[in-house]
């Protein structure tokens, strides 16, 4: 079974802190994605990566950066956390040959 894991299920941080959200997949997928999900807004794509060291902005990249040093790991970085970044963060991966995405369990981040 494809497995996508995220480093934390729940996280509480203070405004201004640097926050790292880690995502690891074990299926050798080329593509990895970070979304945030807020009530009534659905899932919004923050960044995605189609190869190691490659990244592309999604729809809402402001306030975020990403890192993909290894194929299996995709990190989302909040350089200076703000209260409006309180959200559910979802990581996903896929391969070019199979169009479906596989999601991690999500990280619920609260910024105080």
């Amino acid at each position: 079974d494809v497995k996508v894991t995220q480093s934390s299920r729940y996280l509480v941080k203070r405004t201004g802190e640097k926050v790292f959200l880690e995502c690891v997949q074990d299926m050798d997928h080329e593509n990895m994605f970070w979304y945030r999900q807020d009530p009534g807004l659905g899932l919004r794509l923050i960044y995605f990566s189609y190869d190691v060291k490659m990244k592309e902005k999604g729809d809402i990249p402001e306030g975020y950066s990403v890192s993909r040093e290894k194929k299996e790991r995709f990190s989302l970085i909040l350089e200076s956390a703000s209260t409006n970044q309180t959200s559910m963060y979802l990581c996903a991966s896929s391969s070019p040959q199979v169009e479906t995405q596989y999601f991690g369990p999500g990280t619920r981040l609260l910024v105080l």
Partner: protein
Amino acid sequence: SQQGEEDPQALSIQEGENATMNCSYKTSINNLQWYRQNSGRGLVHLILIRSNEREKHSGRLRVTLDTSKKSSSLLITASRAADTASYFCSPFSGGYNKLIFGAGTRLAVHP
């Protein structure tokens, strides 16, 4: 890729009844995918239907696709309380498997 619009936003039914959710989109697609999300969890892929297919089945799920109307429907037959979840469609037009998700349909199945 483009966002699908799910309808209705919320659906409440009794166990054993059928649940139908609809999805509309705007431009031509390669395929359309349906996902389920249980409360507070990640999304799980349910079914993919390609643009040259009209209907697809998987267990109690039936998906139809009408490319002329740019719409799809997901039917869950003989629903169970465990089907309570949000359901999302994602029309896919190509490019890095980048999917876009709308707000989904929240389904509540009451015992």
